[in-house]
């Protein structure tokens, strides 16, 4: 199969006409998931050669695949965007046909599940995960092994595993990439987790805005059931496990775990105070393990490599914004931001310079250009006043007004607030009003200090993570780009 042409038909290349190329093709083509540098799409690959089928500026794509291939541009395997990656989670993404379980099985899917079931030692699996130091990839970075051990230790015959696939940060599309490109790796990771904690029922909560991911997950779940990798007595063992797909209804807050639980139960997607944590009282009151897509995606690779070879692991980022080359990349944990943004992403457009990199979406903050040598890991980014987040990385060049950016994120949080607690429901509205006032140059120094103080109140007093982190984009830009705010004050105010 290695010399068969692989064409990316995932969301990004699809939006650039990949499906039309697929229809207008005479040769055998294998549909695959994301190949990486989305901005060069549509992308194809032959063996280890990556081809950009992107037409020149005044042309249109195609019309046939042959015509597109004739004009294609090869992206060298030595290109830093490809070379500096370490693909563990996305190892088979862009290689396997996500719609074909036989292809996935031929390339090693479900082998780790089989090995785990053959060894029949759940606590050994948890111990491996704990020793690896794997932390939750959804953004908060909770130690995965500890979470698994907690759920495993809970009494009760019935437990549940939930995969949080409600990826909603603006500029984040890592989880979508894995679901569209290699759903079986995700299913295998979830099944291994379920075996480790003793759960028989699994749920994948995926947002409705990801129709292709939903379709491919449905296909993959059905195929895995048909091949005996999900369902009763998996691989001849005593382990039975079923996965149900639950589709969200468009609320960002349902990515918060307690709101997600309510939504799975068919109730209003509203957070509740913790404790009790889901490990104790989760879906339908069962002890529940909730992890993000990428966290589960790490498990098969971790078990295959072993703790030593796995090392510090990787992080998948979706690089986007004012950068020359955008797309999905998986890099070793601790890679400097500068390597990702400048070396791999090619930096800002000619004549422009990078002002900041936004990580963690509405819950995160900005890293100023002066701190680009920071390694990407949980603690370094936290020290800068932002968070690792789920992996959205938005590059901002010197044309960006940071107050404008903060207002964008606050408007997002205002729109997505569930309305349960007052600081978030009413506080985000007042925060946006204050930011708009500043942007319209009607603001005073008093408004600026009120903005800051209200940010702290909303962060301190809100019920769930959405409200608690909603002011972060404001606080982070105030910390690193205060001059952008001061410039907007009425002239008399600055002189005062």
């Amino acid at each position, binding site marked *: 199969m290695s010399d068969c042409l692989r064409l990316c038909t995932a969301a990004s290349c699809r939006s650039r006409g990949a499906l039309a190329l697929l229809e207008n093709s005479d040769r055998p083509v294998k549909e695959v998931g994301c190949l990486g540098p989305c901005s060069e799409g549509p992308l194809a690959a032959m063996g280890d050669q990556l081809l950009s089928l992107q037409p020149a500026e005044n042309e249109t794509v195609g019309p046939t695949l042959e015509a597109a291939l004739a004009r294609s541009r090869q992206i060298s395997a030595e290109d830093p965007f490809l070379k500096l990656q370490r693909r563990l989670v996305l190892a088979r993404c862009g290689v396997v046909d996500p719609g074909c379980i036989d292809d996935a099985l031929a390339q090693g899917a479900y082998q780790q599940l089989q090995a785990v079931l053959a060894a029949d030692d759940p606590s050994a699996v948890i111990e491996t995960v704990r020793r690896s130091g794997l932390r939750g990839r959804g953004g908060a970075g909770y130690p995965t092994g500890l979470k698994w051990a907690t759920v495993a230790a809970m009494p009760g015959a019935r437990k549940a595993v939930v995969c949080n696939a409600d990826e909603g940060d603006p500029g984040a599309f890592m989880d979508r990439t894995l679901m569209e490109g290699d759903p079986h790796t995700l299913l295998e990771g979830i099944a291994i987790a379920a075996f480790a904690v003793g759960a028989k029922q699994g749920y994948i909560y995926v947002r409705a805005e990801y129709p292709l991911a939903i379709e491919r997950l449905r296909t993959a779940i059905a195929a895995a059931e048909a091949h005996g990798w999900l369902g009763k007595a998996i691989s001849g063992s005593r382990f039975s496990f079923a996965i149900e797909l639950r589709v969200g209804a468009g609320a960002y807050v349902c990515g918060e775990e307690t709101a997600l639980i309510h939504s799975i139960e068919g109730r209003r997607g509203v957070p509740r*105070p913790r404790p009790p944590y889901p490990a104790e009282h989760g879906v339908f009151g069962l002890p529940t393990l909730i992890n993000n897509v990428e966290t589960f995606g790490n498990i098969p690779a971790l078990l295959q490599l072993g703790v030593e070879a796995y090392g510090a692991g990787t992080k998948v980022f979706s690089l986007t914004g004012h950068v020359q080359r955008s797309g999905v990349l998986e890099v070793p944990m601790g890679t400097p931001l500068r390597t990702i943004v400048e070396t791999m992403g090619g930096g800002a457009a000619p004549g422009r310079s990078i002002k900041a990199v936004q990580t963690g979406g509405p819950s995160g903050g900005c890293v100023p250009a002066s701190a680009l040598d920071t390694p990407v890991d949980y603690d370094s980014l936290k020290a800068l006043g932002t968070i690792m987040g789920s992996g959205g990385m938005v590059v901002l060049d010197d044309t960006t007004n940071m107050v404008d950016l903060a207002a964008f994120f606050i408007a997002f949080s205002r729109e997505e*607030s*569930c309305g349960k*607690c007052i600081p978030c429901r009413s*506080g985000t*509205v007042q925060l946006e009003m204050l930011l708009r006032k500043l942007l319209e140059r009607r603001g005073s120094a008093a408004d600026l200090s009120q903005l800051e103080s*209200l940010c702290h109140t909303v962060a*301190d*007093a809100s*019920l769930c993570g959405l409200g608690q982190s909603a002011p972060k984009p404001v606080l982070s830009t105030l910390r690193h780009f205060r001059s952008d705010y001061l410039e907007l004050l009425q002239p008399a105010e600055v002189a005062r």
Partner: protein
Amino acid sequence: MSVCTLRINERDVAVPTGTTLLEAARQASIPIPTLCFLEGLSAVAACRLCLVEVSGADGHAEPRLLAACVTAAAEGMRVQTHTPRLQEIRRTVVELLFTEGNHVCAICVANGHCELQNMAVDVGMDHSRLPYRFPEQSVDLSHAQFGLDHNRCILCTRCVRVCDEVEGAHVWDVGWRGEHCQIISGLGEPWGAVEACTHCGKCVDVCPTGALFHKADTSEEKHSHPERLQTLVHARTHQEWSP
């Protein structure tokens, strides 16, 4: 039954394990402000007025802000209920409530007997530092005996909970989200058209403001009766029906 000892505002307090910090403080005559909480109903920790600073119990050096209504007392906890930081949060929360509604005390049925009004006095809110938003809100007068004025609703959801948990009718719920949240009856129908309503009036009795009211009441005439709920819940729980 095991007992734990904790310290609230430099006072040692001993309570049965599992007691909430709110109960523990009230037993020690330390008042913690609340709006969404009502004894007899489940706690939802939504109004955030009962936030207290807790340190000690779980090894955190930095005090954590926890809602007293849902946090269980634990051995060795140190609780502060009225620090400047908490007082600033409480005043801001009350200001946020006033700015998102249309609270005109002078013409309100609950004037003088309103928990929101009392709370504003308690937290020292003589004016709002944030601008009033004057949202356009409606009034539902379709029910024969009662009315619902959304202008005065603070979305505490006491009505939702009392109707669901005590009356068992679940007439009320919350519709929409964020700033657009509104208490809805039935499936968003006029209250008078909801057949599930038993006209018991419990929602009116527990409403902290003038949002739910008897139609016969005019300015200053509404008195809430949360004690009726508490008597009923006590009677049911302990099977003691004589007063």
